[in-house]
C-alpha cells in the first residue's frame, strides 16, 4: 500500500525545519526502502490555479480552491516553464470539475559534505 504524506505549515513556520533535516529524513526512508519521491514546494504565493469550464481555460493567481473542494490526487510533472505546466495541468480531467493548483517545487539546499 502506498501513502501520500502531505506537509502543512503556517507561513511563519515555513522555514522552521532545516533542509538538512528534511534531506536526512529522505535518506533514511530511502535506506529503509520506503521512499518513492518527495519534494519541498515554494510558498503559496507562487501558486497558480487552473480550471477548465465549457472548454475555456481559466488561469488565476493563488491557491484559491473552493473551500468545499478536497485534495483528491496529485501529478508531479516536469515542464519547461509555467506556461507549459499550465497547459499540461489543463489536460488533467478533474480540471473540468474542480481546480488544479500548480505549485513550483524547489531543491533542498544542503551545504556540500566534506
Amino acid at each position, binding site marked *: 500500500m502506498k501513502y501520500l504524506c502531505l506537509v502543512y505549515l503556517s507561513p511563519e513556520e515555513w522555514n522552521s525545519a532545516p533542509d538538512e533535516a528534511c534531506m536526512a529524513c529522505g535518506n533514511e526512508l530511502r535506506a529503509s526502502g520506503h521512499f518513492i519521491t518527495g519534494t519541498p514546494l515554494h510558498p503559496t504565493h*507562487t501558486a*497558480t490555479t487552473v480550471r477548465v469550464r465549457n472548454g475555456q*481555460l481559466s*488561469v*488565476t*493567481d*493563488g491557491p484559491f480552491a473552493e473551500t468545499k473542494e478536497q485534495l483528491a490526487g496529485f501529478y508531479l510533472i516536469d515542464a519547461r516553464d*509555467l*506556461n507549459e505546466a499550465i497547459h499540461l495541468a489543463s489536460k488533467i480531467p478533474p480540471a473540468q470539475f474542480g481546480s488544479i493548483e500548480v505549485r*513550483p517545487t524547489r531543491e533542498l539546499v544542503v551545504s556540500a559534505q566534506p
Partner: protein
Amino acid sequence: MPAPEIARVRAEIDKLYRRESRRIFATLIRLLGDFERAEEALHDAFRAAMEKWPAEGLPQNPVAWLVSAGRFKSIDKQRREKRFDHLEDRPDVSESLSDSGPAPDDLPELLEDDRLRLVFTCCHPALAPDAQVALTLREVCGLATEEIAAAFLTPAPTIAQRIVRAKAKIRDANIPYQVPAREELPERLESVLRVVYLVFNEGYSASSGESATRADLSGEAIRLARLIAELAPGPEVQALLALMLLHESRRETRATPDGELILLDEQDRSRWNRALIDEGAALVRSVLSSQHVGAYAVQAAIAAVHAEAPSAADTDWNEIVGLYDLLMRVTPSPIVALNRAVAVTMRDGPEAGLVQLDALLADGALDGYQLAHAARADFCRRLGRNAEARDAYQRAIKLTAQGPARRFLERRLAALPA
C-alpha cells in the same frame, strides 16, 4: 574635451535615459534572466556612460554600448560574488551583442521584441490583476513606486509588496520571458489590453479621491497601447487605442477649472481635441472595415458618434442605441444595458428609458452601482417625479466615493423643486 562638448554629451545621456532606459532594461532582463539584476545593470551602464563618454565621446551605437556595458558589469559582479558558480555553463544568448564595434543589424528588432516580452510577462494571467497593473507601470512605463501608489491612492508599501511578490513568483514559478505562441496570443493579448484599459480608466475617471481625472495615468495607457499596436498590430489593440483617444479628446472639457464635473451634453465641444478625434475615428473605421466586431471596437464606434456630433441634441441616438444592441450581443452585462437605457431616453424620452432601467434595477445586479441610481434620478427629474428623483439621488450620493461626482449629484438634488 571642451566644457560645452561635455555638457552636450551629458544632455545626450539624459535624453537616452528618458527615451531608451526601459528598452535597455527589457533587453537586460532577457540577457541576465532576472529583474533585479537587470535594474542594477541598467544603472551601472548609465553610470559607466557618465564616466566614459565625456572623455571618449559618444559611441557609434549608444544603446548597444549601454546594453553590453550593463550585461558585462552584471556578469562580472556575479563572478566576483560566487567564484565557483556555474555561470560559464549557462547558454550565453548575448553573443549577438558584441562588446565593441558597431551593433548587429537586427539589434533594433531585438530590443522591440524584448519590450513586448516584458509587457506579456508583467501581464501574465498567473499574476494577481492588481500586481499586473503595478508591475506594468513600474517595469514597462518606468513609474516610481510612489507615483503608482499616489495614482491608485494606495500606500506605497502595499504597492512595493505587490511588485516584490510578483517578481518572486515570476522567478520561482518560472514564468517565461517571451511573447506567447500564436495559438495563445489572443487570450494573452486580452489580459494585456485589460491592464491597459484599467490604467486608462483609473486615470480618466478616478474611482475615488478629490480629482476627477489623472492625466498622467491615461497618458501612460495610451503610450502602452501605441507600443503594442506597433509591435503586435491587430484589430483589438487598434480598437482599444481608438476608444482611449476618443475619450481622451474630451478630457479638458469634462471638469471646470476647480474640478467640478461637466456632463457630456454641457461640454464645450469646440474645445474637444480634434487631432485625437480624427486619429481615433480613422482607427475605428479601419477596424470596422476589417469585419472585426469586438467589445472595444463597438465602444470606440459609440465614442466616435459622440465625438463627431455637433451637439448632444444633434447626436445620432438611433445609431447609438443600435451600437449598444450590438454591444449587448458581444459582451452582455447590466452596465451595458444601463448605458443602452440612457441612450433610449435620449432617443425616445425619459419615460421609455425609465421602463427599461426599472426592469434592470428589479433584477438587483445594479443595486450597488451609483450610476444606475444617478440615471434613475435624472429620468425622474425630467419627468417631474421629484419625490422619486430625490430618493434616487440620495442613494447614488451614498454610493459615490469620488468628490466631484458626489458634489455634482448634491447640486442636482438641491436644485430639485420642493
